[in-house]
């Protein structure tokens, strides 16, 4: 189970949400939304360092399932949130970091597209492919 979300400032509305598998998406949306508060808290707490690759670790959100929520924020305050199933113990911190890095790179590529207005939903096929492949790798 893996969900990745990209939220943009200032209102933190999601630009892109993708989850694998696709059921229970609403739950993930909610999870992401609540985690955004934690992200903001961390950002404002940080003084100089603005890039934080792993921010959030929730031990237990629901009694039945464990989720780990990872956050990542770019220099322009774009937040990436990833929700992973805790049962997926094979997923290490480094892998999460590399996934975030890939996300960030792809996001940068999207920004380079003059037809993309920052703040739009991300509809790039290349981006989708990248995210899909990334998620498939994990699950």
């Amino acid at each position, binding site marked *: 189970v893996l969900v990745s979300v990209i939220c943009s*400032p*200032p209102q933190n509305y999601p630009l892109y949400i993708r989850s694998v598998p696709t059921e229970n998406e609403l739950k993930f949306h909610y999870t992401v939304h609540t985690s955004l508060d934690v992200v*903001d808290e961390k*950002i*404002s707490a940080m003084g*100089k360092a*603005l*890039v934080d690759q792993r921010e959030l670790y929730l031990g237990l959100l629901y009694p039945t399932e464990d989720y780990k929520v990872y956050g990542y924020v*770019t*220099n*322009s*305050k774009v937040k990436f949130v990833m929700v992973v199933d805790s049962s997926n113990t094979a997923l290490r911190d480094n892998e999460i970091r590399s996934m975030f890095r890939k996300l960030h*790179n792809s996001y*940068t*590529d*999207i*920004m*380079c*597209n*003059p*037809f*993309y207005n920052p703040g739009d939903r991300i*509809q*790039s*096929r*290349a981006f989708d*492919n990248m995210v899909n492949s990334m998620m498939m790798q994990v699950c």
Partner: protein
Amino acid sequence: MEQGPAGGPAAAAAAAAGTGGLLLPLSESEQQRYSELFSRCCPPPEAAAGGSSVGELFRASQLPPDTLHQITEVCGAKRVGYFGPAQFYIALKLIAAAQSGFPVRIESIKNELPLPRFMALKNDSEVRYGTPAELHGVKFQVPHASLEKNSYKRTDEGDKQEPKSPPMSPVCSPPASPSTYQRIPLSYGYGKSRSGLEQQHGAPYEIRHSTHQQEGPSSGNYGAKPALACSTLNRSLSAEREQQDSSTHYSDDPWRITEEQRDYYINQFRSLQPDLNSFISGSVAKNFFTKSKLPIPELSHIWELSDVDCDGALTLPEFCAAFHLVVARKNGYQLPETLPETLLPEYLQAASLKPMRDCTLFDSYSESLPGGQQTRDFSRTEKAPAEEVPDNSALIKDAKKDDKQALKVSTALKTIPKEFQHLTVKTAAQESNALKARPRSRSYSSTSIEDAMKKGEEPPTPPPRPQKSHSRASSLDLNKIFQQNTQAVRSGWLPPPPPALPPRPSVSQEVVLAQPPSKPARRKLRTEAQGLETPELSPTINVTSSLPAVKPHLPVQKQSSKQKRAIQTAIRKNKEANAVLARLNSELQQQLKEVHKERIALETQLEQLRPVTVL
């Protein structure tokens, strides 16, 4: 194939209704013939005849296009926007009238008329042969020949020999609505590849049309695509043309850029950015492609596909690829998920320097571009080519030179000796074309060799280069670096006669030259790339330093052979340099991204320090 159209008599009545009360009596044979033709053009269950097949049919009637236009107007298809049964029947009647010599009027079809003749339309029940195909075919093709230029004429010769059966150009391209926007670029390629196309797709269509694959002339070529609902007749007529065009793409490969198209794109590039080695910034490109009226998500996707280095700007090959994708999309092709191989910048670069005899139609494109999707008349198409032919011949030489200037490819070096004889000297003028290449352009340019070549020819005229070198990277001692390059190349490269490649030169030079301020970080890239290049050129210095002195006096032929050898060595070296530079490029891009991040970080810090709420 031919279904007995249930609405034969009904259609006649419909014809009456459709023309607002005009009673159109159809004899038995007429009814039968018309309904058969209608069903041919309009496979049920659609209600309206497909524009392409209708156009093909009309074309097969061998009437001049003006007459056909008139007919379509009179029959009401233009008004209602499609060929319904009524309009179709009326049109057929009018065709019969026209073929009998009557004027195209409603009145004339009230009489008894023979059945309209459609040349070489073979169907199972009847075969009618009109006047010899060549006559009309030739006539019809002439205007197009001028449009299609050499390639078209070549295939045309072969075509005329055969009976013009309705081409089936069958393109399996998706039935999207083609537009008039891109007619010019497409028409270029279509003559060349028609034959291949027809053979490829002859089989499926043979069943339908029971004809043999032939390269019909342009008149017949508007392939019988599956019926498409066309909104206007004009568009349908023009659509046929574009379907044909796109079909020719398809035969080669819809994603392959033909020479004419390439020229076309290059000229468009030039209109946006005079320096063919530089790039078009994102906003400029955005405005340009937005004019194509494609939806933004599609344009966004096209951009993603074509901007392979993801830097927010388009180099010439990237631009050609993007433009080609736009053209293809306009003509109904679905955009691929990944960039086709033939559109990759490397591929395009390699292919780009082929001899380009055909100029593009600057005028026609510029007029169609602002117009966006206009319905286009045949007459306009035909006039346009006629006008452009004289322009082209005059411009060919210039275009060749300019194009050479633009497209630097190491493989192109082989063609250089040929060009030497052809090109006239354009020294200062072309130098000043300021080939400002991005650092990454080095990967495809033959950089130093040509650079030096140009520098070699320079002795007679003072190179304007010095003024350019200060445009941007004033912090770099570019001149010194270029001098090194010049030296290196001079020695390794027998000086071509003055008429040699003028523009090419400054590739590496320009690389260092001023970049648009929006890419400041490239400065770093360039210097490093420059540094890389110099060591590689130095090995060539050891040849002979006395060559420069002898330069202007060597005969061309001797130089050609030596040049070839030198070219090959240069190619090898360039390839090595390319690999290194590509690696360097990627690293530097990474650095660029990091630098941007830092910049953003600094900016956000700044904002935080201000007494304004951050989030």
